[in-house]
């Protein structure tokens, strides 16, 4: 019985590390593009992983789990932003230095200023790597709607398509 318990404990640790490694990068980028600083993004990431490891339901597939954790992270970001703006502690124009290169900072600022409806499409396309059809399914939009938002998002972020150069 002890052996079983040890192996279950080991499985749990392994589970946590594997999940963290799989999702951390794009979830951090999503959180960062909402809140704009490392500290809050870390808190959100931590909260999202706690929910995944300790409170999540059983998922029928890995894809379900991935979509669930993305949604939970975005909701946590939105909740954070509500309290953020409500308390009126920080103004977007006075954001502290990101400690990145100036060009990266510029991109981050553009991302932060991006309206939410374009931001979510940009996040799923560039951060997570979903295709247009998958984004349409996740956000319950038509494919043409996703393409339109992607186009406008790119315009606002001044991104040129590779095949357009």
């Amino acid at each position, binding site marked *: 019985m002890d052996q*079983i*318990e040890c192996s*279950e*404990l080991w*499985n*749990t*640790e392994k589970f*946590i*590390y594997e999940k*963290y490694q799989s999702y*951390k*990068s794009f979830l*951090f*980028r999503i959180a*960062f*593009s909402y809140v704009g600083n*490392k500290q809050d993004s*870390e808190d959100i*990431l*931590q909260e999202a*992983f*706690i*929910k995944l*490891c*300790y*409170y*999540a*339901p059983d*998922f029928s597939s890995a894809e*379900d789990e991935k979509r*669930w954790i993305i*949604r*939970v992270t975005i*909701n946590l970001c*939105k*909740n954070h932003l*509500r*309290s953020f703006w*409500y308390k009126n502690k920080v103004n977007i124009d006075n954001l502290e230095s990101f400690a*990145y*290169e100036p*060009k*990266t900072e510029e*991109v*981050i600022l553009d991302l932060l200023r991006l309206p939410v409806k374009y931001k979510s499409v940009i996040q799923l396309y*560039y*951060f997570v790597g979903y295709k247009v059809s998958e984004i349409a399914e996740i*956000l*319950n939009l038509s494919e043409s709607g996703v393409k339109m938002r992607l186009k406008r998002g790119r315009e606002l*972020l*001044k*991104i*040129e*398509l*590779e095949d357009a*150069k």
Partner: protein
Amino acid sequence: MRENEFNKTISQIDTDAFMDKRITEHLLAYEEGSVKNNKIKWRAESLIRRKKAFLSSVARVAAAFIFFFVMGIALVWSSGYFKRTSPGNANSVNPKLAESSDDDLETIMEMIEPATEENTAQAIEPMKEEIEADFLPKDMNAKKITTKNYRGGRKIINGPFVVGYRIGQEPDEDVIKTILDNCDIYPGDDAFAEIGLPDITPTHLMNHYLLDKDGYVYKKEEYDNRTHEYIRAFFTYDSTLNKKVYLFYYPVDASIEDIRFISNDDYDIVTSDYTTKNGLTFTLIDYQKERHFNDAKIMFDSETLGNGIYTLQFSPGMTQEEIEEILESVPIDADAITIIQPKYEDISYEDPIVFKTE
């Protein structure tokens, strides 16, 4: 900026090794500060418990099967069916049958109704999942009346109206019509429409539970210079009332941010979170001194649904799995709402509560 340049730039936004260490350590030491914390132990043990429960349920099913099989054999044996087929000892075992004449056998055969299309259909009908019924009370603005099987009984569903009855209490169509015509119940979608919402009753409740005869109660009251509205509905799994679920919805004019719940030590509440597959995070409140009466609460601000407090209250007899099944079927789009965590304020009994008596 080109696409690959953008990708390269955003790839710089990533966690660092210190952050990874902090987060994973926190995850492993969640709640207790140790790898062997209760939560992880519980999680590991729950896997073992689930395996054990599965094995024991298999054993129980097998035992039940063997029991019924043996009982069935015994019953059939005692009725003499097997013994009559043994010509060698027919006289000694069942003299009555052995001595029965061809006339008796004919009489017995006449008593057995031959299978016809009509009686076969009657026998199969209650086994069907959903059957259209004929007794539509037209004046009820009925959407659809169906009869559905549920454990050991059937229920009649007229949109949100549900009337349940047990097998053996064959439904008298006149009685049902009278009930449906006179019941003072409010359709769920109409009740929610009063406050501009779609019906947000968990679909699991609609499909598997009985709605109380009061139906959906929508109330609008004026006091404290404010309008207070709410919708209330009561569901029960069956007439034993062991499993009860109360649904409450309070629309709120102001932002939920401003709402505070009052709590005190007497309630002795334990709160936890449950997040559904759709990303809705409910706050579960376990009222320990109320024999573990559970609340699942979700408070939200929403541009499309308005601001509100959605509460499901579960009776102590309900398991966590049943509660989760119901929460999973709450038809609220997580993307359409912003969830606000409930805030509690303690009451100090050192300050006496004074009622204003004018």
